[in-house]
């Protein structure tokens, strides 16, 4: 079996093959060309069947472009690595490329989603944005990464969970569309943390018990007393530093923070749904991306979740998703109810939730 990205000209050449020996491959190539006239990127798995005929299988594949802003705040900057190109040797560009690939793999292989929009949207990122820029963000179309100031933060591409977090903002934009303020904003943030953590766990093959559950591990310099920016397992414990202070994330709804800053504390109150997800995953054990991740993925794609959903409404959406996929008597439904109850947001029992 060989893997490779087939460029469009080669796909067209394969599609024209007359030889019966290549009939299947030629058909697959024609399907690919017809299926997507804008032709983006498809992975072709080539092999031989029992009759020794060439068989081509089309698989979704990412279409990545990494650009370099070279220390300016101009987006997108100059392309430095396109899909299928060799590594550049620049760690930021190569980490972004690999991180987008790992994130694409989780959505495609586990949830059957082809990119951010579910329809093969190209994945674009800009690295080396700004001068000593202490941030990474999603601008509605692309992921943008700064190099950090070198005193508190190093480059933001150094953590796969950060890359997964940014791309998940794109997925939320195309699905639940959660408004970036107050509780719906904290949910938007939490969904990015959850899938950022899952990208890292899936990529490393880590179970619930093996995983760090940290967001942004490795982006603090050695000067900072802390392992990461956030912890899903134990919100409020990621760092405790003389300069930064202590990680202020709440882990329970009783400690919800009211503030005007940060869109109503979207990066703070996300600790509450983050902890709920961890509790569900811990209860179910094994690989968190399988059942717990599937339930959360179903919830953001579900029909009932509104853009201004609060924690209780999102909790109800996850119960409904677990009920739909695993059944009322399942361990999954029980784990989801217990998880939310554990952070002070007890959902209605499923039969009641189902009838309202």
């Amino acid at each position, binding site marked *: 079996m060989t893997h490779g990205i087939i460029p469009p000209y080669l796909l067209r050449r394969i599609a024209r093959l007359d030889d019966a020996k290549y009939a299947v491959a030629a058909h697959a190539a024609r399907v690919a060309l017809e299926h997507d006239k804008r032709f983006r990127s498809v992975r072709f798995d080539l092999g031989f069947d029992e009759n020794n005929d060439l068989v081509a299988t089309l698989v979704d594949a990412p279409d990545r472009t990494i650009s370099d802003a070279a220390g300016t705040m101009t987006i997108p900057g100059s392309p430095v690595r396109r899909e299928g190109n060799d590594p550049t040797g620049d760690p930021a560009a190569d980490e972004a490329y690999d991180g987008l690939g790992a994130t694409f793999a989780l959505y495609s292989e586990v949830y059957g989603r082809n990119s951010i929009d579910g329809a093969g949207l190209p994945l674009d990122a800009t690295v080396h944005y700004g001068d000593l820029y202490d941030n990474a*963000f999603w601008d509605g179309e692309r992921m943008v990464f700064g190099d950090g100031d070198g005193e508190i933060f190093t480059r*933001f591409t150094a953590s796969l969970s950060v890359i997964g977090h*940014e791309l998940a903002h794109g997925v939320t934009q195309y699905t639940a569309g959660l408004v970036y303020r107050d509780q719906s904003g904290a949910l938007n943030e939490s969904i990015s943390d959850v899938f950022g953590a899952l990208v890292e766990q899936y990529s490393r093959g880590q179970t619930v018990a093996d995983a760090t559950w940290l967001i*942004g591990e490795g982006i603090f310099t050695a000067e900072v007393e802390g392992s990461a920016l956030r912890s899903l397992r134990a919100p409020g414990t990621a760092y405790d530093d003389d300069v930064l202070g202590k990680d202020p994330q709440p882990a329970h709804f009783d400690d919800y923070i009211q*503030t005007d*800053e*940060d869109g109503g504390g979207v990066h703070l109150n996300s600790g509450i749904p983050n902890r709920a997800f961890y509790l569900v995953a811990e209860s179910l054990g094994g690989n968190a991306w399988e059942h717990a991740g599937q339930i959360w993925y179903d919830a953001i794609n579900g029909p009932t979740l509104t853009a201004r959903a609060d924690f209780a409404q999102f909790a109800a959406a996850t119960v409904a998703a677990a009920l739909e996929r695993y059944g009322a008597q399942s361990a999954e439904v029980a784990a989801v109810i217990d998880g939310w109850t554990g952070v002070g947001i007890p959902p209605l029992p499923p039969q009641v939730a189902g009838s309202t």
Partner: protein
Amino acid sequence: MPAELTITVARSGGFAGLTRTWSLSAALDDSGELLDLVNACPWRRVQSDAVSRDRFVYLITVRAPRKHRTARVPEASLTGPWKLLVERVQQEHPAPSPTRTPPRSS
């Protein structure tokens, strides 16, 4: 005490959710150029940014006798005089320790 002009910039949001604050104070008599910059900013017409996620938001406050202005400017709109004003405040007062949003429980 001579009348003073104080400009404060609080940058919140961002992936880390850390708030960082800078401020500048100057005697009002010596602040002609700075006041021109303040007056050049479109205080009542700040473009909002509903699409970006994890970007910084700048809370900019100007205080002087009989003058109190405040605006919340998303990073995407921090251009022109806004950018010059924020850079001026950041230069004047080299970045102190960043702090997280002070938690105030409900």
